């Protein structure tokens, strides 16, 4: 695994935002039956999701989180020198980069660098690595990392493997240079052989949209979806995490010279509860060190780590310094972990965004 150590950079704050609209999983009972929904919910841990009704995009959620964070940090937007947007559900099919629109909407200066980074489950940690690297290597002082997805908008409502799992969320993480000799440790990896186990087949240049690509057809099990809907092979994804996540955590701990006991919290990508609890048990991590936010937000893709920090650890990171081991893993396959001392930082409660707050452009 690629291991990187970055010095002299700190996380100053983390904020998350979700659509105000809540969909309890019981809403699926008419479609799948109460028992089936309950069974799925018990396994995944998801009890409700915050979802976009069709107007709210990734950038709207990230912008709400960023505004809140900049205000609470009392950062002048003009002091931000780079903004990175991590997502797999950008506002536009390919051009322009959504990050450019966020530079404008957030009032960031025209001297600010802005770019998109296309990753999902591992994306927030990859974003931290790149943002911290920019500060350490190129002398920037302040970088804003935005990570979010409107994953629910990629799901067929007739596909139980995805529609009952994914929720929508955006996040903002503020990083800045500091003189103290703080260290952020990263461990990263990729296995592209898993590319087709979490995939939207059509809509890009490999398989452009055509007259048949939006037609929903019967797939495996009783699921129905189109080639423009997201497909997930849950068993393959689970097998991948069993294979890669324990070595990822081991690699991070070894590079950080930390024992499991010295880590205050292992904040994992919120894939599903069954998987996280199985991994925690296998890796002998106490469950109270592995916060879970799935019940309230579902799997929020690239935003799930910040959403878990803001919803489950906000009071802790506001008040004291803790050792965090963050780990994202999934679509790609791609994985990344980060070990850092974090806090006290600005960490507001999760912000709710109304549908009417969508950017009307």
């Amino acid at each position, binding site marked *: 695994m690629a291991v990187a150590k970055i010095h002299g950079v700190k996380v100053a704050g983390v904020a998350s935002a979700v659509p105000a609209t809540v969909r309890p999983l019981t809403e699926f009972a008419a479609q799948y039956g109460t028992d089936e929904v309950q*069974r*799925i919910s018990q*396994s995944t841990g998801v009890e409700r999701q915050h979802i976009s009704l069709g107007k709210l995009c990734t950038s709207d959620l990230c912008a709400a989180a960023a505004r809140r964070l900049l205000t609470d940090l009392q950062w002048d937007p003009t002091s931000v020198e780079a903004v990175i947007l991590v997502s797999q559900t950008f506002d536009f099919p390919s051009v322009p980069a959504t990050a450019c629109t966020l530079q404008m909407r957030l009032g960031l200066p025209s001297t600010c660098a802005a770019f998109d980074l296309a990753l999902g489950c591992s994306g927030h940690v990859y974003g931290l690595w790149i943002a911290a690297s920019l500060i350490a290597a190129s002398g920037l002082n302040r970088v804003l990392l935005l990570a979010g997805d409107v994953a629910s908008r990629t799901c067929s409502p007739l596909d139980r*493997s995805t529609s009952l799992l994914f929720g929508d969320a955006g996040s903002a993480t503020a990083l800045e240079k500091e003189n103290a000799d703080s260290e952020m440790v990263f461990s990263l990896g990729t296995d592209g052989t898993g590319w087709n186990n979490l995939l939207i087949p059509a809509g890009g240049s490999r398989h452009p949209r055509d007259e048949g690509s939006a037609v929903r057809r019967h797939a*495996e*099990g009783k699921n129905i979806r189109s080639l423009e809907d997201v497909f997930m*092979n*849950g*068993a*393959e994804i*689970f*097998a991948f995490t*069993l*294979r890669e996540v324990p070595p990822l955590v081991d690699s991070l701990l070894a590079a950080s010279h930390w024992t499991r006991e010295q880590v205050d919290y292992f904040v994992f990508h919120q894939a599903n509860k*069954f998987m996280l609890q*199985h991994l925690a*048990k*296998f890796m002998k991590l106490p469950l109270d060190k592995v916060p879970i936010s799935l019940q309230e937000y579902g799997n929020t893709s690239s935003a799930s780590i910040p959403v878990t920090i803001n919803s489950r650890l906000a009071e802790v990171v506001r008040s004291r310094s803790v050792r965090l081991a963050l780990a994202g893993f999934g679509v790609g396959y791609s994985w990344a972990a980060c070990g850092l001392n974090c806090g006290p930082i600005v960490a507001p409660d999760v912000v709710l965004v109304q549908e009417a707050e969508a950017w009307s452009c």
Partner: protein
Amino acid sequence: MDEKTFLANMEELLECIPGSLSLEQSLVDTGKWDSLNFVSFLAMAHSKYSKRVAPADLTGCKTVGDTMKLVRPS
């Protein structure tokens, strides 16, 4: 490998009456061999038998006995 323990593990996983499963039992006929239990089997093989079973191998299983072969010590 203890066959009785394996059957008991499968009965728990598939929520079947204890003692009701045999190695010859067709998985599909239990009515409970679906994607969630498929993943539960991968987890059980991992935690109780220290085996990382490939989903493609599990897909090929027709009977409870076929799944037992996947977790046998190599």
